[in-house]
């Protein structure tokens, strides 16, 4: 698929935003400004952006505990996100959700999900809505390699085939579920082949290459929008950092980590578009600079913001009780 210069800038801006956001989360976490845990998306930027690039606000996604990148890719406001992650008033979920529960219905973002395998069934439901209302839209379930072994995920694959809904299963295989390698925990030779055996097309994609992801997603989308049923992508990518911010990662050799960095999706994008003279370094650097400023602003805002009012504690459990 041929992308315009504007598209390319938009793609890079997305990846750059995730990169800057997550590096800052890592830093703010170390500074004690982020309560709880945080799982950052560094190294996987091309996946989220590639998958979500052609989605509208009416296409839906379900995400994971490692959801910041998906949120950004789906158009969530980074200020609202940073406020949320810091547990502040004005956060996308009023400070009640936190890093693992960011959602924005208005953007078709049905929620990060702290339960591994939580999202795929829900995404099937969103895809069912798309089918029943004949919207021509789709629903994407992001899952990790680890989540690919959860019973709920398997059920969702089969259900999507049986109901013939436009669900796209984006398996982000970053090689690890926490501290255990996918090579150990996924008994199957391939997540994509396993998904295919459920009765849907599936392919393995180089997840550090935005263009590869975007192309594959194009095929998945075509099928979904045409009402032909589900699709699965195994997006092979790398986690630059540990499972959660602070994980020392003794289980990964330095060489492996170096290799991941050498395959940096932003760098690869830059090389590709500059070598093809589609964009030049200045274009990309300008985006990086804008993005950094935007994140800086979000962080400043979030740090300065107050905590949610205590009166909100018992609000919004129900629409009405």
């Amino acid at each position: 698929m041929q992308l315009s210069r504007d598209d390319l800038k938009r793609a890079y801006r997305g990846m750059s935003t995730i990169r800057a956001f997550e590096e800052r989360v890592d830093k703010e976490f170390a500074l004690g400004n982020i309560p709880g845990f945080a799982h950052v998306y560094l190294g996987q930027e091309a996946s989220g952006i590639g998958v979500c690039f052609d989605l509208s606000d009416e296409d839906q996604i379900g995400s994971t505990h490692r959801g910041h990148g998906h949120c950004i890719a789906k158009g969530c406001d980074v200020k609202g996100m940073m406020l949320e992650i810091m547990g502040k008033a004005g956060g996308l979920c009023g400070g009640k959700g936190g890093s693992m529960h960011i959602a924005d219905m208005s953007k078709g973002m049905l929620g990060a999900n702290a339960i591994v395998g939580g999202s795929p069934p829900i995404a099937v439901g969103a895809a069912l809505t798309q089918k029943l209302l004949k919207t021509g839209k789709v629903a994407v379930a992001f899952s990790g390699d680890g989540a690919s072994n959860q019973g709920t995920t398997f059920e969702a694959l089969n259900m999507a085939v049986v109901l013939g809904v436009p669900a796209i299963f984006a398996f982000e295989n970053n090689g690890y579920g926490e501290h255990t390698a996918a090579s150990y925990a996924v008994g199957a030779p391939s997540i994509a082949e396993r998904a295919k055996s459920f009765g849907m097309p599936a392919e393995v994609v180089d997840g550090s290459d935005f263009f590869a992801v975007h192309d594959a997603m194009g095929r998945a989308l075509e099928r979904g929008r045409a009402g032909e049923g589900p699709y699965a992508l195994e997006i092979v990518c790398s986690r630059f950092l540990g499972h959660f911010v602070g994980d020392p990662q003794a289980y990964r050799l330095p060489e492996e980590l170096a290799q991941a960095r050498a395959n940096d999706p932003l760098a690869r994008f830059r090389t590709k578009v500059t070598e093809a003279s589609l964009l030049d370094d200045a274009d990309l650097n300008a985006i990086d600079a804008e993005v950094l400023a935007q994140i800086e602003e979000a962080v400043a805002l979030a740090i300065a913001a107050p905590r949610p009012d205590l009166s909100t504690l018992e609000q919004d459990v129900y629409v009405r009780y």
Partner: protein
Amino acid sequence: MARKSYRQAINEALRQEMRRDSKVIVIGEDVAGGQGASGETGGVGGVFGVTGGLYKEFGPERVIDTPISESAIIGAASGAALTGMRPVAEIMFVDFVGVCFDQIYNQAAKFRYMFGGKAKTPMVIRTMIGAGFRAGAQHSQTLHPLFTMIPGLKVVMPSNAYDAKGLLINAIRDDDPVIFMESKVLYDTEMEVPDEAYRIAFGEANIAREGKDLTFVAFGPMVPRALAVAEVLAKDGVSVEVIDPRTTSPLDEDAILDSVGKTGRLVVIDESPPRCSLAADVAAMVASKGFRSLKAPIGQVTCPHTPVPFAPNLEDEFLPNPRRIEEAARAALSWR
């Protein structure tokens, strides 16, 4: 108005709501029946026939049979609800919730709160409850305490056909996730049920019988049992008030406290093992908020702390039966 069974009342509620609102869909195992088979499709309507005929009227897009994958059923319902539909999902026997519990308590019930009030999940989970069917330990539970404890979920336990229809219509129109617990031993019980649609609000108890000496609080299939024992006691000149809260979450605390304020004596009749039960929940609430009214210890008639046994005589003894209810009533009455 005509006599209708509890089963028919539920079926009618579904049908009327589906006619009224095209966003209402039914999804579950064999809710149509016969999909992919050589013979008739849609002739089953659930293992107990409760969704009978809906497929014929509304077709496969709105009466959706699924694989045996309860997590995917509940997820499909909640994902559809988040995005604009009003699904009525069926978990055939409540005992099966263990395979999809996460999708209920961590997902559907929590969305609204976790997302800061920006999502709504208007879905109903219909399910069958209760012992007395000789169906054994994995098909006879009630498990309402499990749901009542979940913030974000509403829990409905109709005890008769009239309530079943009005409560189900209310559940379908409600914007929160609701679990609707149908008593399989009540499906064939009949009474007058209006033909038109009507709603019964949640959190409003039904005073199933008025009385002044003793209060019974009972849930779902225990209500007819409580009424029967009240009748027996009436012959001895004891006047028992029977409260049917109809929903356990929200719970109509006022109705219970008012009654105990009048009678001073309370027996809770609850089909579940005793620990962390609804019986305990109501007893603790009254012991806190109605302390001054109490003239006797609160009686709790529950099942024993055992799984549901299969043998009919054991199962009958397991259930809060008339003998045990009456004993508890007399103990409460005799306390000075």
